[in-house]
């Protein structure tokens, strides 16, 4: 495990392992008692239409900066020990991992709050866009958060 691979905030083409991310997080402190994770996955249905493929695009540098801001604010505002945020870009199949938030804390309460806040904030502030391929063709998804 290189530190590059396990930087706490990443946007990457490759899939990630939830177990590996959690184990990397555990190394931060022996005082972690609770870890809440949220994993977003590609689902087949969207507004009643069958999706065959997803594709994510991001604004390089700005997206990473926003994720780092979310991570730092989560640690500061919710009293968790640490957080990692990973978002994939490029083509993604149904059932595949898209985004992972890992919130680690001494107790469980703050990790739930921080994790739920972070994924909502990611959706609100991070320049990442989704294109869905359905039988009607390809469309950029522009649902408001």
């Amino acid at each position, binding site marked *: 495990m290189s530190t590059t691979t396990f930087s706490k905030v990443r946007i990457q083409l490759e899939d990630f392992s939830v177990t590996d991310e959690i184990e990397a997080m555990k190394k931060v402190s022996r005082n972690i008692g609770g870890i809440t994770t949220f994993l*977003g*996955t590609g*689902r087949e249905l969207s507004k009643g239409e069958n999706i065959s493929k997803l594709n*994510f*695009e*991001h*604004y390089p*540098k*700005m*997206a990473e*900066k926003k994720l780092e801001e979310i991570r730092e604010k989560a640690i500061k505002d919710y009293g968790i020990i640490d957080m990692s945020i990973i*978002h994939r870009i490029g083509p993604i199949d149904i059932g595949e991992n*898209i*985004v992972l938030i890992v919130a680690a804390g001494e107790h469980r309460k703050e990790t739930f709050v921080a994790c739920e806040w972070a*994924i*909502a904030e*990611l*959706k*609100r*502030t*991070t*320049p*990442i*866009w*989704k*294109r869905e391929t359905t039988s009607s063709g390809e469309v*950029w*998804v*522009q*649902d*408001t*958060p």
Partner: protein
Amino acid sequence: MITLKYFASLKAIADKEEEHLDIENPITIDQLSDIISETAPKMGAMIREKKVLISVNQEMASVETIIHDGDEVAFLPPFSGGTK
């Protein structure tokens, strides 16, 4: 010279991903929308009608933001990362 970037659905509307413009003096976003309208009128209209988000040097911009030589201006449709 300033750099303009178009993301996601806006690439088709602007018919490009990126372009470079020379500006002599700092300009407002309104003035920038006029310049853009010359080659991509629909894109210029969307900027004036506030149908896109705009960032300057990777920070979200407002209508008051002044663009200076060397800035990177990006036009961003509503985000859809993460999941519902």
